[in-house]
């Protein structure tokens, strides 16, 4: 089993290094899984690809676990790996296809949700967001997600996307303008 060397003051030692490492890995996965999945999902646009890429990102990070000295840096590094993995995927496949939630097959669909009203609201919000994101180009959407959702500095966004600062500024500005117009149209 691979070891994770993360300094976590809250952890309790069990006396078994292999078991401790496994527990640390599990905790790391549980803490960041949702966030990483959502970053990737918003960039690639469908659940099946996002699932594969999320797993790939975690495996990449945990395989080089010796670099994870503290949890904060580890989380930051994971975010970078996640967005890079999603960007690489888009480069390879050159497509984004937002899955209609209704078309997702079991077992990913919730069989029933506790609050139907809340579910409906969430579904509406999701549809609005995904419809809005569909109006953006792949690069505009990636730049918008990294900058406005993940709070990644613009310089870092440029580095991750492999383009200049001027280009990234242009992508961000276009994305915000398009998204704003989309929301205004919906309101109207």
């Amino acid at each position: 089993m691979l070891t994770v060397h993360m300094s976590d003051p809250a952890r309790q030692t069990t006396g078994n290094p292999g078991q401790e490492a496994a527990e640390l890995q599990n905790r790391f996965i549980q803490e960041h899984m949702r966030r990483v999945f959502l970053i990737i999902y918003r960039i690639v646009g469908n659940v099946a690809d996002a699932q594969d890429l999320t797993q790939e990102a975690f495996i990449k990070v945990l395989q080089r676990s010796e670099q994870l000295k503290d949890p904060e840096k580890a989380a930051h590094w994971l975010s970078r790996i996640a967005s890079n993995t999603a960007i690489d995927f888009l480069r390879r496949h050159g497509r984004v296809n937002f899955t209609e939630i209704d078309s997702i097959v079991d077992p990913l669909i919730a069989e029933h949700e506790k609050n139907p009203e809340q579910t409906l609201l969430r579904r509406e919000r999701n549809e609005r967001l995904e419809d809005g994101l569909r109006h953006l180009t792949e690069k505009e959407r990636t730049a918008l997600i990294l900058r406005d959702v993940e709070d990644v500095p613009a310089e870092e966004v440029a580095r991750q996307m492999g383009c200049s600062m001027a280009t990234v500024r242009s992508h961000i500005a276009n994305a915000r303008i398009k998204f704003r117009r989309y929301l205004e149209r919906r309101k109207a």
Partner: protein
Amino acid sequence: MKHPSIDKLALYAGGELPFWTRWPMRRHVDGCAQCREEVALFAEVKTAVREETADTPAGVNWERLSAEMGANVRLGLEAADAISAYRTPVDMAPAQGMSWRMVALTSAFVLLLSVGYWLNAAKKSEQLAAMRGPEPFVAQASESAVEMSDGSKAMVLQGPKSHMRSAIVTVSTTGSAAAQYVDEETGQVTVNNVYVE
């Protein structure tokens, strides 16, 4: 009043403008209600995007999906671990380490052999040259000429070509050769002698 472009306002709202552009922009926005409103709208867009992306896609059973992904990650790590454990002792680490050392050792050995051979060959060549010494001189006499040579160069004394009646050729062991030619018409005798010293 000239307003900034909408692109610049969008970037100003997110704080992406460089300092030298942001500063005059701030002055303008502070004094312009219309641009201030634009900036506020962009800030709202940012908030909306952030809030809406925080939701798990509707209809997705997150508990089940995350459990599946977690299990796959652990499986992937186990597989990677097993592959690296299989490769490391036999194929990868020692092979790479040994090949580096072997290359260095072999190169040093080949270099040593080459230098040794070269030095030995040069010495042998000098010794042979010393043993061989200068080429011996040879003195030869025939009915037509007397010749002296050292292997690479030769000096030839030709006898008379016409009316030659007879020739007496002598070669001595002390390093000389001689030829006597008698002219048929005049009876004149020509004697050629060469000596090796």
